[in-house]
């Protein structure tokens, strides 16, 4: 077991694994630590698999567009596993005039950033996806959005990074970071001490407590989201679906099963027992939502439900990049449930930051010290 490397990454989610992969590809030595015994057992294994550009904050949109244009199309080939990427569009559905106003606002903001997304009426929605009910009166349509398999993407990055010599240690719960001569250097876990020239904290919500040990506080909260999967069905439609009302989102996987995520409204008062616990009321609520939009799925059998936490940023976009006060310290957290779709570009950018190279895209909108009080 080695305890020193050029870069120590805390968190083996899709962000940590992707960063490790891009670093190792450039010859940097990397150790990845995770407190869980499983690789990528947080949000990376629990999300709905959306690879969307539409609906994103204008600050985040350039990352999503770069990933869709340059990284996702060849990712399966690059990693040597099928990440099941489909670039076949995203429909964000509306059932009321109020929904259409929300969608119009999102669409206007995205087109201003150069994204090809537009509003379509109910008839056009059903021409694209004939399974949607007459309750749907319109949608925003982005033909270049899509979805992928988050489990295979995370484990694919892990496998590829491991083959390049990245050292992964699970069951290593970080208790604190330590600086030496003002520079981030040591990572203390319950079992070991690791040292690196650079430390990247990509541990979801837990990043907050890890960064707190060196006096940095990222304003974020955590939100529980639940998801479910059906048995395999014959292929129905390839688009990613979402709704203006946020009743549910999801898609049909290559396997044939449908993965849908959603909420009941009681997430903030979930009886958290230390696990990602599902509530008995949420999955039925998601089912009721789905059936209003896709009546044909009423007979589909639910085989499994699960829950996961989102690390929600105070202003809705992640915190990415160097922490200037502590040279050598880098973070990527507070993804607010939008991290999976941008993970390939975030991994690329973090690898560039850690290697002190010029970054492919500007990261200044994601600085950790951007948060200001309202008055």
């Amino acid at each position, binding site marked *: 077991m*080695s305890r020193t490397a050029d870069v120590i990454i805390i968190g083996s989610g899709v962000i940590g694994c992707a960063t490790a992969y891009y670093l190792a590809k450039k010859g940097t030595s990397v150790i990845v630590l995770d407190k869980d015994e499983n*690789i990528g057992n947080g949000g990376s294994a629990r999300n709905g698999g959306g690879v969307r550009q539409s609906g994103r904050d204008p600050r985040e949109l350039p990352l999503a567009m770069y990933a869709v244009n340059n990284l996702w199309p060849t990712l399966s080939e690059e990693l040597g596993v099928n990440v099941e990427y489909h670039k076949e569009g995203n429909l964000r559905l509306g059932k009321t005039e109020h929904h259409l106003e929300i969608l119009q606002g999102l669409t206007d903001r995205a087109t201003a950033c150069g994204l090809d997304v537009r509003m379509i009426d109910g008839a056009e929605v059903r021409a694209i996806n004939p399974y949607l009910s007459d309750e749907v009166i319109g949608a925003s349509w982005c033909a270049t959005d899509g979805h992928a398999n988050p489990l295979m993407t995370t484990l694919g990055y892990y496998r590829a990074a491991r083959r390049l010599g990245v050292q*992964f240690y699970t*069951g290593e719960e970080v208790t604190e970071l330590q600086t030496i001569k003002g520079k981030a250097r040591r990572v203390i876990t319950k079992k070991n001490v690791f040292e690196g020239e650079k430390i990247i904290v990509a541990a979801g919500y837990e990043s907050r407590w890890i960064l707190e040990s060196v006096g940095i506080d990222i304003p974020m909260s955590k939100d529980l989201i639940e998801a479910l999967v059906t048995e395999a069905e014959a292929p129905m439609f390839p688009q990613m679906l979402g709704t203006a009302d946020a009743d549910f989102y999801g898609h049909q996987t290559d*396997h044939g099963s449908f993965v849908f995520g959603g909420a009941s409204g009681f997430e903030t008062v979930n009886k958290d027992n230390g696990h990602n616990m599902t509530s008995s009321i949420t999955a039925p609520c998601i089912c009721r939502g*789905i059936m209003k939009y896709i009546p044909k*799925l009423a*007979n589909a059998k*639910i085989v499994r439900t699960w829950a996961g936490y989102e690390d929600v940023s105070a202003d809705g976009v992640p915190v990415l990049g160097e922490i200037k006060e502590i040279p050598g310290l880098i973070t990527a957290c507070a993804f607010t449930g939008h991290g999976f779709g941008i993970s390939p570009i975030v991994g690329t950018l973090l690898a560039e930051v850690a290697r002190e190279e010029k970054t492919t895209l500007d990261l200044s909108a994601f600085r950790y010290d951007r948060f200001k009080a309202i008055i």
Partner: protein
Amino acid sequence: MENIYDRTIDLGEYKPEPDDDRIICRCEEVTKGEIRRAVHDGMYTITEIRRYLRSGMGLCQGQTCAKLVKGIVARELGVSPAVLTPATSRAPMRPLEMKIFAKEGEEDE
């Protein structure tokens, strides 16, 4: 090997076995050879194997194959099966139609 935490330990070369094509997970049709290869790809836990291969993710949710998969993974890693944490059991216990499940907690009932 005593635990599954250190993913750098060399498991040696993957050696094919005569019964590698035997189906272990009947629901998702995952073979013994695929499970053994996944371990060599770095999937050291039952949870990772499930996510990588879909074994135990089908209609029976691993109620048939869980012990078999665990035995194969443990042998490949050279650990006791007791070291491997079983996969999390998830609701519902049996596959349930959306229209039935949806009635749970409905207001007018």
